[in-house]
């Protein structure tokens, strides 16, 4: 047990990688899901334990050296309250959505490809967990590509239902690769300036470089600024921050239901995490926000994301696409939170990472049930389903209330912190944008809810409530999103720890 506990940071990433490889070579059909389920459940247990370990440490960090090579020569994993939280989000959502995936995926993907599907599923989770835990800038790129490559393929697996999945996937490959390449170029510039790839080590070596900039002989000024610019643009593409969100709506809409849920609740969250890490730990707030005023650019982009994303969501007739545009708006809230760079802002950002993952994951799962039972997710397919699928539609509606930010849902907690962060900085216009975004969310959620409960169906299709294996995960996610709205002490505690850590406040 001691051995497992000591090697927890490595195991959490290596386990899904190895089991994923095994899953891709086993011949027996049906075994793939069991392997994925076991692995993700073990991953959840490991990340809970890791979070407990981190919070028990005095300096709130757990360091792990790969193969015992000292950093910066080897690859070091470093876990602090922020990435322990994101690890928990990814493993929790990974486990719950895998539980759901069995029937849903079997109905959308040919039986012969199921084992490959679950192998890619595990690789995707490996990559996402790896990005979150690694302390090495180049290692982050490699894991980013592991998760992206498996995601492209998972999206393309929706082709048997709608061939648009293929064009969505190819578009995602091109834009995703550009994003990753930009990040890689950024790492090259920072390597030229500092000669290191370890995030903490680069941050340390940048200090004398920053100090030289005010003087007669500034060193590496252009190199560092260019490197940061490349990284910021590359990660914004990965995180789908407006106006670099072009790949997202179609990828979410045409992917198999479980894949949409996994992507919406984890992939962009991990992108946001990587961006936060680059700004706060790698470059430092003083450089990124103080000297370069990236915060202003971020505020403009995220404000526009909230308004444009919500506005476009209102105009959609496919509910899956509606949720995808709503995700773009939600990413705006997350980016706005860390752009404000005060304690409430970062707390809001981290809480929203968590709450939005639960809410949007739950809603995509509810839509997956509609896909499973009715065969489509257009507004006309949902008409009058309130009576046919009462539990599923109840869950969808509860999730929708969370998106609006109604009190007693988790969305309210994140927006509360976000608005108070805006007011603390005296940014009244941003607080207004958050409120307008909530009103727009009310409009697009209401459009769907009205169709569900008051729409008349011409064709009396005979649909029954979903099987328990799909219903339970949906209710877990939506239930959790309501629970954390009523009792937010857990989320605010860990998000507060993360904010303190990033802002270097001693606990």
């Amino acid at each position: 047990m001691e051995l497992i506990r000591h090697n927890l940071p490595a195991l959490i990433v290596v386990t899904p990688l190895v089991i994923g490889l095994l899953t891709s070579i086993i011949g027996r059909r049906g075994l793939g899901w069991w392997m994925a389920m076991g692995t993700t459940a073990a991953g959840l247990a490991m990340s809970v334990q890791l979070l407990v370990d981190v919070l028990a440490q005095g300096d709130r960090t757990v360091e792990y050296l790969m193969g015992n090579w000292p950093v910066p020569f080897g690859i070091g994993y470093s876990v602090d309250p922020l990435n322990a939280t994101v690890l928990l989000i990814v493993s929790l959502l990974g486990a719950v959505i895998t539980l759901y995936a069995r029937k849903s995926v079997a109905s959308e993907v040919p039986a012969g490809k199921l084992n490959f599907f679950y192998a890619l599923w595990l690789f995707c989770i490996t990559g996402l967990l790896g990005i979150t835990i690694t302390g090495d800038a180049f290692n982050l790129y490699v894991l980013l590509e592991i998760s992206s490559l498996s995601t492209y393929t998972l999206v393309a697996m929706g082709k048997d239902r709608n061939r648009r999945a293929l064009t969505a996937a190819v578009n995602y490959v091109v834009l995703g690769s550009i994003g990753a390449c930009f990040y890689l170029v950024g790492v090259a510039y920072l390597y030229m300036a500092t000669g290191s790839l370890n995030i903490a080590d680069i941050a340390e070596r940048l200090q004398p470089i920053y100090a030289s900039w005010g003087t007669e002989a500034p060193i590496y000024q252009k190199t560092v600024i260019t490197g940061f610019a490349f990284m910021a643009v590359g990660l914004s593409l990965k995180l789908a921050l407006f106006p670099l969100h072009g790949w997202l709506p179609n990828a979410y809409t045409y992917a198999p239901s479980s894949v949409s849920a996994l992507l919406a609740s984890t992939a962009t969250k991990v992108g946001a995490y990587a961006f936060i890490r680059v700004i706060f730990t790698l470059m430092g707030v003083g450089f990124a926000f103080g000297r370069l005023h990236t915060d202003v650019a971020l505020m403009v982009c995220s404000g526009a994301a909230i308004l444009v994303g919500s506005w476009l969501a209102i105009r959609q007739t496919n509910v899956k696409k509606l949720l995808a545009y709503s995700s773009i708006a939600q990413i705006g809230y997350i980016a706005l939170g860390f752009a404000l760079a005060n304690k409430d802002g970062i707390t809001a950002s981290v809480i929203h990472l968590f709450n939005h993952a639960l809410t949007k994951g739950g809603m995509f799962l509810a839509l997956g049930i509609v896909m499973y039972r009715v065969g489509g997710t257009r507004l006309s397919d949902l008409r009058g389903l309130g009576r046919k699928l009462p539990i599923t539609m109840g869950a969808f509606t509860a999730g929708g209330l969370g998106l609006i930010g109604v009190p007693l849902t988790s969305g309210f907690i994140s927006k509360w912190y976000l608005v108070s962060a805006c007011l603390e900085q005296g940014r009244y216009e941003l607080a207004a944008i958050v409120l307008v975004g909530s009103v727009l969310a009310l409009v697009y959620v209401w459009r769907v809810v009205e169709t569900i409960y008051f729409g008349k169906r011409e064709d009396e299709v005979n649909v029954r409530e979903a099987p328990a294996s799909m219903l339970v995960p949906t209710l877990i996610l939506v239930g959790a999103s309501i629970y954390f709205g009523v009792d937010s002490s857990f989320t605010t505690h860990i998000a507060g720890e993360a904010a303190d850590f990033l802002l270097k406040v001693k606990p």
Partner: protein
Amino acid sequence: MQIVLDYYNYWACILIMMIGFYGIMAKSNLVKKVISLAIFQTGILVFYISTGKIDGGTGPVRVADGAAEAVYSNPLPHALMLTAIVVGVSTMAVALAIIVNIRQAYGTIDEVDIETMEHERGE
């Protein structure tokens, strides 16, 4: 002019990258897009490797005892780029596999044609 000549290796890399970038943006044929992506990635590979080069540096081989200390180029970027090449090849493979599927589903690999077809179907 001096800045171009002094850093001609970087200018060359940026030129290769931008040729690829232009292709990604401008071409509607999906295979050409993927080729452009490969060119873009190659630009990055060369960029990394040229950062490690030192004038007169040799390979990082241990010299015999007693011989004069050799100056050698930084080998780390080479090692990193081996990984990046693998990633690049995998991206190519995934992209081309998806394009093969697109060709089977639509009968064309031109982005504009595909959009027109989908538009006519009322998507």
